[in-house]
């Protein structure tokens, strides 16, 4: 019997041991093993741009902060996706299109607010000129989300597959319409593309001295992280301290029971979808300020949301946070700490993260089974 036990244990433990060993190796690689590039050429498997964390702690800290701040943005967008899925079992394939639409709307509003002139100097932009575009964009996209939910999704609740197909159709239509009609303002120079960007408020355009290994870090990125944390806290307060939030949590746990208790679950669905769309919109504004908004990003952000939610688990706030951090860590570190001769394999690590999580917890790290 002992032998059977041992065999059974080994069979289950072996993949876990292998996976654990890989993760440990990856951490050791980044922290200790790797070396800076040689004088000439790319070097071998040990050579990366920065060398090990011990050798160059400043760069390591910067990359780590890049990952965590990016996780803030990921969280904002993915939490909306997770909320919609967790409660209504709707895979909102139009989430990326909401992001795109919101980014362009916020851009248009900011253009109007910052007046004429060929440039928007970041330092001239005050906080209100960033917040109002975001609010307007969130509002517009929330209305669009409400329309989609009421007209197309509320009458076929429970038919998961059909709803997924409907949101796919909506995403195709919205993405096409957005590209056809935006951007509207801005002077078109010879050969201008449709990628435009917003700017953060002026006070974020500096770097903060962290007084640690000489690292100076962008305040805008830290603000992005702060926004993500603020959204997380607000969502937590909403879900755990208000009645609607309680209904939502109950609905995530057991939809039928909640409905049979006489609670107007349909109103709650509508609220959840609207909040999810608004979160995507907020993410779109932040993303447009941090980088640009342009065609193709709807696909990118749908994938980002999917990966975060698959890794972290559906319908769970903590899951969305954990998924965001893990995914951002993998993305950012694979960009900077892969050997110079192998930088193109960063996507493989993303897949590895997915496979790793799914092999052990198919429902995601913090998801509920089934």
């Amino acid at each position, binding site marked *: 019997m002992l032998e059977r036990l041992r065999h059974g244990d080994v069979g289950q433990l072996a993949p876990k041991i292998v996976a654990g060993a890989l993760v440990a190796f990856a951490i050791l690689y980044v922290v200790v093993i790797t070396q800076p590039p040689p004088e000439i050429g790319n070097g071998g498997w040990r050579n990366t741009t920065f060398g090990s964390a011990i050798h160059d702690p400043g760069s390591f800290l910067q990359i780590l902060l890049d990952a965590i701040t990016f996780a803030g943005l990921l969280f904002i967008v993915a939490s909306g996706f997770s909320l919609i899925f967790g409660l209504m079992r709707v895979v909102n394939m139009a989430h990326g299109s909401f992001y795109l639409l919101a980014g362009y709307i916020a851009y248009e509003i900011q253009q109007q607010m910052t007046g004429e002139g060929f*440039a928007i100097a970041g330092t001239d932009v005050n906080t209100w000129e960033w917040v109002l575009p975001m609010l307007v964009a969130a509002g517009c996209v929330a209305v669009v989300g409400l329309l989609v939910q009421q007209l197309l999704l509320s009458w076929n609740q429970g038919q998961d597959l059909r709803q997924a197909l409907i949101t796919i159709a909506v995403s195709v239509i919205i993405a096409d319409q957005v590209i056809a009609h935006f951007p509207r303002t801005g002077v078109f*120079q010879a050969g201008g593309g449709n*990628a435009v960007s917003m700017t953060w408020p002026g006070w974020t355009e500096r770097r903060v001295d962290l007084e640690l290994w000489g690292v100076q870090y962008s305040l805008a990125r830290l603000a992005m992280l702060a926004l993500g944390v603020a959204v997380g806290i607000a969502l937590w307060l909403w879900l755990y301290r208000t009645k609607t939030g309680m209904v939502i949590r109950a609905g995530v746990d057991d939809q039928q029971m909640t409905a049979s208790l006489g609670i107007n679950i349909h109103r709650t669905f509508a609220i959840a979808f609207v909040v999810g769309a608004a979160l995507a919109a907020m993410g779109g504004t932040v993303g447009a300020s941090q980088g640009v908004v342009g065609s193709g990003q709807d696909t990118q952000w749908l994938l980002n949301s999917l990966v975060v939610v698959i890794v972290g688990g559906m319908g769970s706030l903590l899951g969305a946070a954990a998924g965001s951090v893990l995914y951002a860590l993998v993305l950012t570190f694979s960009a*900077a700490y892969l050997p110079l001769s192998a930088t193109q394999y960063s996507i493989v690590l993303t897949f590895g993260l997915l496979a790793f999580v799914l092999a052990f917890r198919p429902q995601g790290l913090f998801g509920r089974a089934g």
Partner: protein
Amino acid sequence: MKKLRSWKLLLPLAALVTVGSVFVPGSLAAPATHEIRVAIMTDCKGAFGFGYELDIGGAQAALAQYAGGKIKNRNKPSAGMTGATVAGHRINIVGYGCGDDTAPTAAKETRRLMEQLRADVMIGPLSGDEAVTVAQYAKTHPTKTFVIGTAGSQDPTLQIAPKNVFRYHGDGAQWNAGLGEIVYKRLGWRNAAIIMDDYSFGWTSAAGIIADFCAIGGKITKRVFPPLNTTDYSPFVRQLPRPGTVDGYFWVIGGTGTGASLKAFEQAYGRIDPKDHAGNLFFAFLGADRVVAPKVVGSYVGGFGTGGGLKTKQAKAYEAIMKRHYPKLPAADGFVYNYYNAAWALVRALRTSNGQVGAALQRAMPKTNRSAYEISDRGIVKLDSRRQAIQDQYPLQIVRRGNTITTAVVGYVPNVDQTFGGLFKPSSPAPGRAQPKCVKKKLPWQGKIRVVRNGVVTKQVIR
């Protein structure tokens, strides 16, 4: 029996029958035709979707000017044109291809244009990967003729080079000729880092910069390759050497990445000094962005084979022609200009071949073309033995004009050929991450780049 929701059944059935009856006839007949069927292939979606009206406008303006066509709507090129004839034969523009910068769509559109709509000639495509697809198609369809629109990939005329593919403008590497030398001499750059999109157009465009910069003695100390579809450019930008450790940075990132990567650089290293940054033509595409574009005013930028603002007679004549036919289109834009030249070359060939297409047309395609922004050889662009243009190039500088940001020509690089004086050969490795290597060499135009001031090419050489 359940109550029949008859409308749910009948409505789709009726729609099917109607739709089917429209399509069935199209499947059967194959009528004969005596006209010259021309297709214009461009992008209506994707990163270069804005080029749709520009490309069509350029080609149709040339057909209007040299083949007597009547434009239907002077504000909307895609409304079409009629009445173009050459040597007594009618030119029928059978369709506009709607690509999205990817190869599969290009393949579908090419088949649709050349097989369903039975075009004899294609003017296009717009982008690099599409041109690779078209060149491969051309290899297996020798009776059709293809005049490339604005595609910048090297392969179609260097490695694939079928006999029925012609390109009357430079490729992505040629467009950047002279940029490296200008920053070496004028800004004193001796070592630089380069960041490029990790795919073939990024490598090709970067190859032009690297070849030019290294040929005169510069050194590329670091190459960074963010993949396409990157959301966060920060970790890539951090891999660039810190300001102060290099003299400058070359940027070869396009699409949604141009603005995003520049912003990421600013967040990582502080304010962007235009003297430390040079880019390829994608910097010029930033023009609509009021946030990022102003940051690079003053940067030197690779060209597009066009010389907007040049005050030569030829240039002014061309701009007047464009204004007559399509007043709202920017004549100096490469998308308009290159398609114009392609269509013009086609018209001249049709005159020579007397309206014949196929092999006769290919023999008749001109080996030279008078191009508006060409100065060498009295304004004549020549094709090399692989039907690729040897073209003057014009490095640019981003400038502010009143309330807009635009580009000004700063240099004139005569007769840039695709091989860069033998550096790029069909048998040499294609541009890639490590190619070309940074070697010192004498390029044919080294030391011969002339200063251009206010649209006038001076006798002064750039020092």
